[in-house]
């Protein structure tokens, strides 16, 4: 068995954790990562993903970090980063995404989990970039993950059963979480989306902290959407409606036990959703920047 960190086995509980993980999955270190915040580790990450599907990312030694550009993940894989100090950065401001989960409209990639760690952009990212990019996929779980500083921290299109649990997404320029369903991706709406026990904050969002477009069944529970210095807190909209007569609209937007605070524009804006509810939620601090700024807008 190859050890996957620079530490001697038995030195610490940390080493034990690394060993246990490496027994059950590949480690990116095995495939040649440098983890020094300077080298491009994309090839090693991609090899680990292609060879193993499921892989482990140990925390680099001495405040190191990984730099990658678009690592594609495969169906059924679980990516585990050692802890919340395990940092993965984009290679450049033009890096499209750090981790990508992408299938085809007729053949979605399914059951992918990314756990722990921090995806952090140390510079201003270009428009269209994302920390995690999900397209044509289902049953995608982000758990215990920090995503910071991307254009969209999490971007999803044609994604079904997207779970954000104990996620901290912040510092985006466009949206902390963007979930859309492009017309033509199928006859129905996208979703469900679950945001649970998560914090979405510190966003100077040209759109919103959470932007939901044509997604049915959205559950935001026990989460905070706070500190949006520009843009809205939650924007849920169906612009196209479903084809048919009468036109159909997505249903099931549920906001329970959430906090919206310090939002530059509307903390909550809902447009063309059916059978939805907001319950036990705190909405505060929409700035008075112009006459028509509302705490919550239902249109």
């Amino acid at each position, binding site marked *: 068995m190859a050890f996957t960190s620079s530490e001697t086995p038995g030195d610490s509980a940390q080493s034990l954790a690394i060993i246990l993980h490496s027994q059950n999955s590949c480690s990116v270190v095995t495939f040649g990562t440098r983890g020094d915040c300077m080298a491009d580790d994309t090839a090693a990450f991609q090899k680990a993903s292609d060879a193993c599907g499921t892989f482990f990312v140990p925390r680099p030694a001495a405040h190191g970090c990984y730099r990658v550009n678009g690592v594609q993940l495969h169906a059924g894989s679980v990516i585990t980063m050692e802890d919340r100090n395990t940092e993965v950065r984009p290679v450049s401001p033009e890096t499209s995404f750090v981790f990508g989960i992408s299938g085809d409209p007729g053949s979605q990639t399914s059951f992918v989990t990314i756990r722990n760690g921090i995806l952090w952009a140390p510079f201003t990212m270009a428009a269209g970039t994302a920390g995690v990019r999900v397209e044509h996929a289902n049953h995608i779980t982000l758990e215990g993950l920090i995503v910071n500083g991307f254009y969209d921290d999490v971007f999803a299109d044609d994604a079904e059963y997207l779970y954000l649990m104990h996620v901290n997404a912040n510092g985006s320029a466009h949206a902390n979480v963007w979930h859309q369903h492009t017309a033509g991706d199928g006859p129905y709406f996208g979703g469900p989306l679950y945001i649970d026990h998560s914090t979405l904050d510190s966003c100077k969002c040209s759109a919103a902290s959470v932007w939901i477009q044509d997604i049915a069944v959205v559950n935001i529970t026990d989460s905070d959407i706070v500190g949006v210095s520009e843009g809205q807190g939650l924007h849920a909209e169906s612009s196209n409606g479903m084809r048919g007569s009468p036109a159909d609209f997505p249903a099931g937007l549920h906001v329970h036990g959430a906090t919206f605070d310090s939002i530059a524009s509307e903390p909550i804006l809902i447009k063309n959703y059916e059978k939805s509810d907001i319950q*036990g939620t705190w909405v*505060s601090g929409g700035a008075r920047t112009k006459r028509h*700024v509302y705490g919550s807008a239902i249109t």
Partner: protein
Amino acid sequence: MDLSISDTHVFWCGSDGLDVGRAVGLKVTNSTFSGTPGAGIRNSFGTRSLFFANTCQAQSLNGNGSPSEQYCVYEDTTANNNTYLNNDGSGTTYGNSMHGGLPMRPLPVSPIRFGSSAR
């Protein structure tokens, strides 16, 4: 359409706490709207909606420079067929108002009912 807001607190927002556009079948119940310098609930275009047992209070907590919370519930002329019950506007300057009628204070805590069905 068929949207429910309940047991929710809207506090210290810039203008109106809740602005209702072309919503149908909205239910807003047991919620508080405080420190909203315009209205707690402004129903601009809503129809067949119910606003029940909501409270507006603590106008002094308005932190956005407006001297007072003007209305608790305000229905524009463009909204119709709505029902309002037991909405407590006693903590606001003008209380509840239908179509801009002034002054309405002191308003009954309730029951009040207005909307096209009451006209």
